[in-house]
């Protein structure tokens, strides 16, 4: 049964909240600028409470169950961090107060910057970008600015493996640069020969996800980075998969010049139904002056533990990429997360994320082919194909819903046909993984013996399979306007 919309539930004359009476004299309103009707629905508070409670029951989060959505690191989000981000001292703080009034928040920012620098091996970090893709655009603009300052105007090509996430090429275009796609070799690494051939005086740099989107650590990472630096290019790291590396290796030590971090993946901030996240960016010494700002800096005070913090623009900053300081609420959560884990905990996260992924890979590979079958990092790809069955990856995904699981990522990376990208994360225990394995193996059997039950899945969730083609054709993007009167726009 579908749930009526707010507009369908609306009854003229209702309101969901009492508001204070006006206690100042009324000023004259400019009648010619005032609208007759703002078009919002009218509901009582109990309707609103029930509406959103019902909608929440029609939604699946990490707290609902296993959510192995590859590349997204759907780990458990600690409750205490939610509570801390809501402390009035943080949540009610205006971003434009003088530095002296916001020392606590600036301390959080400074300490988080320091932690990320240490974890990833960079000279400086800016917390400005609001997501991973935002960090990518930021990094590419920094690379452009850096190269321009060094008279390197002819460099326009960004090398991107064919396994890369769509945001990498999209960010490249937004930065006014051109993508050169590099193929993947038979072991799932970037093809070194093709890379060599692409390296030249027109290269801005390489955007590399490591571990890559196949869940594999680049076996020739040292040579790859040397090649790029050798031709005068820079190496940008897509840090989406940093959860596998914390305490294992520092990208800065490997020679990455820049890298973003998805706080909503690696550092446990919730994904919020699609966002908000945060995408801080780290830079090597030579690129640090180009970071977006402002950045928190610290001056030692006269009294030993009385440091003073302030906001500062890096020397040759590309500018702002967000208003104010970026998504501060996410900084608090991520900082709390790092304090909670410490160095040992972060390393343990990476180890268990990798252990879990390899356990699933080993347990599923006989039923679902694994195209690049070697020790993986935090995730792996298998094919959603079983023998000659007509069942495809999407069908397996829908059938998993009947078992109470969220499906893996489908059809990404694009280089693997019928890809199922499985990332269990470290916060799932063996029982959950075993239950998932059992479900997958059962679906594999169904695919051969009773494919219809898989092809017609899901059977047990509030709606059955939805028609995406029809959505695009119908083009209904908002509740119909039955009362177009409030729209006085000339046509």
């Amino acid at each position, binding site marked *: 049964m579908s749930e009526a919309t*707010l507009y369908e539930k609306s009854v003229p004359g209702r309101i*969901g909240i009492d508001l204070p009476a006006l206690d*100042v*004299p009324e000023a004259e309103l400019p009648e010619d600028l005032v*609208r007759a009707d*703002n078009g*919002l629905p*009218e509901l009582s508070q109990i309707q*609103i409470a029930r509406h959103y409670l019902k909608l929440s029951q029609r939604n*699946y*989060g990490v*707290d609902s169950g296993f959510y192995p959505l590859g590349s997204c690191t759907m780990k*458990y989000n600690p409750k205490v961090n939610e509570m801390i981000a809501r*402390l009035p*001292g*943080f*949540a009610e703080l*205006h*971003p434009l107060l003088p530095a*002296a009034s916001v020392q*606590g928040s600036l301390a959080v920012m400074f300490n988080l910057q320091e*932690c990320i620098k240490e*974890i990833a091996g960079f000279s400086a970090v800016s917390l400005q970008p609001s997501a991973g893709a935002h960090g990518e655009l930021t990094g590419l603009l920094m690379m452009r600015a850096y190269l321009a300052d060094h008279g390197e105007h002819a460099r326009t090509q960004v090398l991107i493996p064919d396994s890369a996430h*769509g945001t990498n090429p*999209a960010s*490249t275009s937004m930065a006014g640069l051109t993508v050169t796609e590099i193929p993947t070799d038979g072991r799932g690494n970037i093809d070194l020969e093709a890379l060599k051939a692409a390296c030249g005086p027109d290269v801005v740099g390489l955007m590399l996800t490591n571990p890559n989107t196949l869940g594999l650590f680049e076996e020739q990472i040292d040579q790859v980075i040397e090649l790029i630096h050798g031709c005068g290019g820079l190496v940008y790291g897509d840090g989406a998969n940093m959860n596998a590396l914390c305490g294992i290796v520092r990208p800065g*030590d490997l020679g990455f010049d820049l890298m973003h971090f998805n706080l909503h993946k690696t550092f446990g901030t919730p*994904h919020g*139904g*699609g966002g908000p996240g945060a995408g801080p960016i780290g830079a090597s010494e030579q690129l640090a002056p180009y970071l977006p700002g402002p950045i928190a800096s610290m001056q030692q005070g006269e009294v030993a533990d009385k440091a003073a913090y302030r906001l500062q623009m890096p020397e040759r900053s590309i*500018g702002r990429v*967000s208003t104010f300081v*970026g998504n*501060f609420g*996410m900084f608090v959560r991520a900082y709390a997360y790092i*304090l909670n*884990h*410490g160095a040992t905990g972060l*390393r*343990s*996260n990476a*180890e268990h994320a*990798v*252990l879990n992924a390899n356990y699933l890979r080993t347990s599923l590979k006989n039923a679902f082919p694994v195209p690049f079958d070697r020790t993986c990092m935090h995730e792996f790809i298998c094919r959603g194909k079983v023998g000659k069955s007509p069942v495809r990856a999407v069908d397996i*995904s829908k059938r998993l819903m009947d078992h109470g699981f969220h499906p893996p990522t489908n059809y990404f990376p694009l280089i693997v046909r019928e890809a199922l990208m499985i990332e269990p994360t470290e*916060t799932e*225990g063996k029982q959950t993984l075993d239950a998932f394995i059992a479900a997958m193996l059962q679906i594999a059997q169904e695919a051969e013996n009773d494919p219809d039950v898989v092809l017609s899945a899901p059977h047990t969730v*509030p*709606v059955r399979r*939805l*028609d*995406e083609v*029809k*959505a*695009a054709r119908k083009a*209904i*993007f*908002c509740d119909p*306007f039955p009362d177009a009167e409030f729209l*006085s726009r000339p046509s």
Partner: protein
Amino acid sequence: MVYVPHTDAERKDMLAAIGCRSVKDLFADVPKHRQFPDLNLPGPLSELEIERELRHVAQRNTSVEASSCFLGAGAYNHYIPATVDDVLGRAEFYTSYTPYQPELSQGFLQAMFEYQSMICRLTGMDVSNASHYDGATSLAEAVLLALNATPQSRSEVLVSPGLNPQFDDVLRTYLRGTEAYVVAEETLGLKTGDLISHLGDKTAAVVVQSPNFFGQLEELDGLANLVHVAGALLIIVSDPIALGLFKPPGDYNADIVVAEGQPLGIPLSFGGPHLGIFATRQALVRRMVGRLVGETEDVDGQRGYVLTLATREQHIRRARATSNICTNAALTALAAAVYLATVGKRGLRRIAELCYHNSHYAASRIEEIAGLKINPKSPHSVFFREFVVDLGMPAEGVIQRLNDDFGIIGGYDLGQAYPDLANHLLVAVTEMNTRQSIDRLADALREATR
């Protein structure tokens, strides 16, 4: 760690299943000389210790009573109804991600569909996306859209001088990736009307903020026509609370409307996460950026919702996508939806009226003070929620005194963004400020400027 549930026995079993002796062996591909660095990090701390530590840190921020805050300048102190955080606290919502699997995400998809519906009505536009990072990045993307939708020879972006200076900064950063450039206050006078004379065959977009950064409503009548005749697109930067009361940009035939959605039930949170509102006309929907929820049916003919027109997006179109955005601001959009549903038609209008009347009352009280002038450059403009006070002395010192001696956050020192406005204070007044607190502000300003 407490969030890693493995016991020693389970770890052993799992390693045996993998065929591996130790966890370390799983990292054989990582260059040996770089493996397992010793990280110098604080912690680990227990839950109790983190909470104690961060409560202590939060206390290093000054807190004032909400009614004594008159600071706005792009982030506003509005009431957040209790319904909002109640819904945001539902883990089914906040621990989910982008609804790639619609059958498990009908709740969020419907909430976003309803968000889009309410934003369309508020702005008077045909279609709204399901959120962008913040108002400034929404604007930058709107300008990129305009550059793509107009011929390549058009590379000028005319920006009204009343644009929030941080929006202007973000826009300029984004334009580093293009051949386009901003024509703005360096070369223009202080009136939106002056923009018109710069319209020409190089113009791709005209950006006007109304109410502008100084709180004033711009003259929008007839503007779209001029912009369209010149072959450019009109982008209006709006404010969602003002839209409760004033005519929407759609009425003025805007092509794209963007806004910072923070006033809609989203905490100030030292600047973020906030919400980018982005709405446009049907004709531009295939160029629109970000996620879009559409209505459809399941195989049984039941109504349902999915993400749609994904061929605009990076995961399908890659280098030719309309934007790189992936993670957006869904949860703050949900906050805005719950906010709008709660206050509803009459409530939003009431809140806007309270802001209007309270701010006018504040301006009239401050105007009584000898030597202080309200909106000195445009005393006859209509203003909403925010206004400029010429103090006749540096605003920085006055703000400091209001804070130190009266416990009042007096406003924004315009000198921070405009060196020639160092004597000017930007004062924001909302439904949170009582008559008493406004009177206190006026009395304190009298003292502090004496």
